[in-house]
């Protein structure tokens, strides 16, 4: 299973490189890593996932939004950790042994996402995906890629790139510029 997955993942990567998304080839499934947050099931493109780690302590970052928990040392690299419950303004729960950090690679950056638990790797076809409804201003859906049905459950597929872009995490240049202006 795992070796087959790896092959599929690799092919998916090729496709992704060749033509944007891996859904171009008919019958080709996209793989998603699903995880739980409160009672909801979320999924991210498995090709963005670098590794899954247990929760370990972080170093708090001075003056940052609360959903950025802090940074950890990931084999010598300083990696920021985002708390997904806080990010989605969900009720906070104490961390359990199942609390994990999904380390994703987005636009050349490595970022950790704290989730309640990792649940599964699922295959989804383009046909399975439903566009997210427009929530108006109630919910920011820019980073919701699609909704999909898996048996009884609905999985919310996240667009990690957009999510991190919309967070202040990647708005580096802008902040740096403002910083230097205040300096002058």
């Amino acid at each position, binding site marked *: 299973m795992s070796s087959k997955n790896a092959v599929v993942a690799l092919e998916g990567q090729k496709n992704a490189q060749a033509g944007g998304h891996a859904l171009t080839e008919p019958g080709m499934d996209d793989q998603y890593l699903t995880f739980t947050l409160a009672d909801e099931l979320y999924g991210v493109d498995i090709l963005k996932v670098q590794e899954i780690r247990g929760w370990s302590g972080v*170093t708090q*970052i001075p*003056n940052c939004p609360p959903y950025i928990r802090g*940074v950890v040392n990931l084999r*010598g690299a300083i990696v920021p950790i985002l708390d997904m419950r806080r990010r989605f303004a969900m009720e906070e729960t104490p961390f359990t042994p199942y609390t994990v950090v999904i380390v994703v690679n987005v636009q050349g950056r490595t970022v950790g996402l704290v989730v309640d638990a990792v649940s599964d790797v699922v295959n989804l076809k383009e046909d399975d995906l439903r566009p997210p409804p427009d929530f108006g201003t109630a919910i920011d859906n820019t980073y919701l890629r699609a909704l999909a049905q898996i048996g009884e459950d609905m999985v919310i597929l996240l667009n990690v790139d957009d999510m991190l872009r919309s967070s202040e995490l990647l708005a580096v240049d802008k902040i740096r510029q403002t910083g230097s202006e205040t300096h002058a």
Partner: protein
Amino acid sequence: MSIDMSQFHQTYLEEAVENLAELENGLLALERDGNADLNAIFRAAHSIKGGAATFGFQDIADFTHGVETVLDKGRDLTLDLSAEVTAVLLRAVDVLGELITAARENRKATANDRLACQQALTDICGDGTPKAASARKEGTGGHKMMNITFKPHPDLPKTGSDPLNILRELGRLGEMTLTAFPESVPTLEELEVENLFLWWEATLETEHTVDDVHDVFLFVTDEAEITVQVVAAIDAAPQAQPVEQTLVAEPMTDRRAPENERRAGNDRRQPEKAPETAFIRVATDKVDNLINLVGELVTTHAMVSQHSSRVDADGHPMLHSSVQEMAHHTRTLQEAIMAIRMMPISFAFSRFPRMVRDTATKLGKQVSLVTHGDQTELDKTVIERIADPLTHLVRNAIDHGIEIPEERKAHGKPAEATVELAAYYRGGNVMIEVRDDGRGLDRDKLMKKATEKGLAQEGETYTDEQVYQFIFHPGFSTAAQVTDVSGRGVGMDIVRKNIQSLGGNISIETEKHKGTRFIISLPLTLAIVDGMAIRSGDEVYIVPILNIMESIKPTKGQVKTVGHNAEVMDIRGSYIPFVRLSEVFKTEMGDGSTRPEDGIAMIVESDHERIALFVDELLGERQVVIKSIEANYRAIEGVSGATILGDGRVSFIIDLAGIIKRANREGLHHAPVKPNKSKMTEEGHHVV
């Protein structure tokens, strides 16, 4: 079977730049002291020319040839390398620099001074008063008349050579009368447009040697019949003998003989070369990668060491001794790797002799440059990034600091001013000083200007140090006139910003009519910082040792509140802002006490602004490897980087300038009192 020469081009051009620098320094030494190692200078020029010819940089080769000729004559004492001659040679160095830069950037060189300079070089060879004709070289010195025939093969243009260029080159050697022979040009129907049917005969009056003339044809000897015949020596130079040499299609044997002779001659006159250190060129990112890896190793070792300390020492004596041994090796390895990046500061200093000379000449001032501690080593990145600020300081010193000779004499000073550049180690830092013996900073003038600009308030008293710091403000210039050298008021703020971005500091000492001294303090390297580990709440931070003046345990009542949310600390009679790190950083606090007497106040200074930074505990000094936060996150105000502690946790390195700025902005210590020593200017104008 052609070899792709282009792969060597970059290497050649890099070498050419180095050789050019050597040439320039040699010439400057010659100009200054009247004697210099002419052989070394000549060698530099010769290397540039030789390489250029090999790698097809014809313009560089041609031009350098002129320089080489002058130097050769100087070496033979047939030409007096007077100040004027040296000046022309320095101009030639500039032209060569442009040619080489153009070649590096793959563009066409801008002609600017080139032809005039080449002419000047030729003129020198013509006019230079021969002191004593050397017996060594046949026909050197003295004017002679030569008959030259140049019969190119019809397919010469196909080899890429332009006969006109060659003839023009020939014309530069002296007075030339040129006759073209068009007899063999066929009728229009038979004319092959790509072929050449002309040949030329030239009469050249020159003081160049037959060899020099042959050199002009160096690249077409296989495609042409060339004869050079000396017909008469005009100037009665003792050794000038008529010499005849005929070159035909297989000329190499003929040409080599004198060439070899000349080389042998050169070698005889060069005493044994200084032994050369063997170098390899390595891409900097490879070295950087190595440094990162060693940084990792140091961290990992710290972790091993920490874990092993928990293991029972009696049970595992070997473990402890080997961990200790490993510590030693790791440190040695780290030092060795860091040493790769270290370069003597002479790389930055070497540009100054020329710059000082040119700037001083332009401004009509007499300035001599003295450098100390050229061999002081520091990180290559630091050297690269300090060069511009230094240039600015030196230029400022000459323009603003140093008086014109008359004014200097009026103050009883020698007409020639001295600008000194000194580098030395102090603690873990490198200090670089730029000193001049000029007029010094004028405090009153600075005050006046500062008040005008709204930087200083009327009626306030300012310390000298505070007043001098005004010059680092953007747009602050006391120069009455804007020259093209300086005075525009941009620059000093950039200078300070650049130095700060390197983790350094700049301070000023000055005395009226005695001079000014800019003192720059820089870290040895950008990769490692000496810091004090401190605890605030649950977090450990690193404060650069450089910034710490002292650490005090506040006594009860030593910290006083002023108004709402502002605190000051009484340090031996002067009040300084008391800033709680946990407040500035707004991190989650532990359950610890917030009473001043339960923590430690670190008196820290940045940009001559002093605050008492309140933390919970000092954990001790350590050397930490700096990691970038911005690789995966963004810049954080008040934090200059991060490091990994022995237990594997991330710890932030504090940027005090940022902390002070943030504290000022948020009014965390803003006290409405005006104590003597502390700076209480308006927030917007705060000296940060």
